């Protein structure tokens, strides 16, 4: 319980499969918190290595091929396969990759998203992207789902 409170652990399961040039990811977890900020999709950095670390391939700001990553009730989305996704590292063209879903929360309640707490004000509107990058964290993360990319 103590360890779980201070580290981020996989708390829900997802499924992922390749469909054409895309990868379709589905899950059951929803997030109705007032601090919900968005959904992020991650995949392993390198092919055929479960422990190579994860890079982001889609989020609220960049969007996915399909699926609303700004809604906490979204339970499916489609992203490009590694050769075409937006990850900023060299992507493999084929091999085994692992995907995860992150549920992102604002660091403060809405009333506390102030300049004193490190936000550009107003916290939304034109400042939303900057504040999202500077003041959000992974609140829940899924377990990994393995996909063999052709």
């Amino acid at each position: 319980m103590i360890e779980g409170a201070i580290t981020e652990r996989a708390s829900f399961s997802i499924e992922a499969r390749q469909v054409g040039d895309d990868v379709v990811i589905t899950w059951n977890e929803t997030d109705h918190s007032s601090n919900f900020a968005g959904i992020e999709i991650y995949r392993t950095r390198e092919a055929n290595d479960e422990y190579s670390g994860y890079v982001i391939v889609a989020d609220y700001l960049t969007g996915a091929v399909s699926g609303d990553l700004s809604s906490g009730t979204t339970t499916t989305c489609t992203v490009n396969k590694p050769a075409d996704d937006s990850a900023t590292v060299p992507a493999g063209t084929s091999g085994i990759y692992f995907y995860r879903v992150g549920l992102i929360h604002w660091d403060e309640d809405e009333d506390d998203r102030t300049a004193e707490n490190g936000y550009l004000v107003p916290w939304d509107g034109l400042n939303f992207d900057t504040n999202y990058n500077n003041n959000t964290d992974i609140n829940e993360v899924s377990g990994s789902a393995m996909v063999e990319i052709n």
Partner: protein
Amino acid sequence: MKIRLNLPIVLFTIFAAVTPARSAVYEASTLYNSVSRAETVQELYMTRWDVLKEKNFYFDIYGRINWVFDFDVNTYNSGSGEYEATELRLTRTYGSMTFAIPIGGFRKDEEGSDFIVALNTTGFHYGLVKDIEVDRGDAGTESISDYKHSQFFDDIYAVSILYRPYFTFHGGYIINNEYEPKEDGTMSYSDPVESYKKKFFAVELYKVMAFSMNIDEGRPESTKVSVELNQGLGFIMDTKSIYFPAITLGYENTAAYNDELYDPVWVDTYTNKGTSAHYDKDSARLHVYSLKVNQRFARSFTVEGFLGAQYITDEIYTKENNPEKIDVSKAKEWYILLSYDPIAKADEATMKAYTGVSWYWDPAIMIHRNNPEKGNAVYGWIIGCNFDIVHFGGDMKAEYNFSSDLKKLVEAADKWAVEGSLFVRI
């Protein structure tokens, strides 16, 4: 009492796949030993009661977290389809909650008497986790921790009766559960892959003699006796001077080696053992005889020395490809602790800072240390402090190969460990 057992074939497969045992990279194996884990959680329970038994309190909640770093464990990589040496972190969390009911009120001072009934639940969790970085792009990098290998939960449910200062009784159940994480790193705590239920009891008389035992399937699994000589001598001479040494004699008897696949040694013979899922098993018991001396040499400083000798009832052999008889050391452990430990009454705030060195021998040391050629004995070091401001307190420490920690978990050999704890007591 063993509730369910479906692990041997899995363990045998792992064991057969990865030999020899002497390697800096090893299987997560000794963690599977419920005998030593039951003993450990019982010792932690008794250690907490050593603090509480002189306090007047109704409720105590205590939490401790301990990390041991740099575990290279053969771990399956689903991406490559192979077992690989993977750096994991061992996390141990310990918590206890105690409700105390004084019948007729608490005693007024340490010389008085009172009668207390207490209920306690204690839990100890061991788990190996893999830290993985998640690059969130412009939002920075975060770390997530995936469960790898089995997670172990050892729980105590106990009732205590204290008739201070004459008599103390603790009794209850120790429950060992093992859970395996799913392939995706998530955990389900509803269905343990293995579960044991054991009984234990502990008594203390006049603060002079303590006796404890845990029992599995009607047979004693481990037994401990200790006698505080200065308390006994107090009946015939004045031992109340703060400079009178506190001398404790101890004896432990444990069913330590049972020819299980996760044990570090074979007992009596290695012939035909471990070559199939089912084989004849022998057992050896470990006897440890100890002497502890705690001497105050100034109003604020103490030195504590401990010396333990051992006897293993049967011959033991390594589990290497070419097994060898192990030359068992007569010495098991020694340590010296120097403490800044100002005198305080039982219900006053206290603080303590300490450092010390140790030596420890165990046949599993060479399996888990960085260089197996250095043998089964290691020197250790510890530094730490604790504080107790009556209703709140805690401690922190860092250690490397210190004997008391290796006794709890020999896998910690040649690894740094850090630990912190907090408590609230009302």
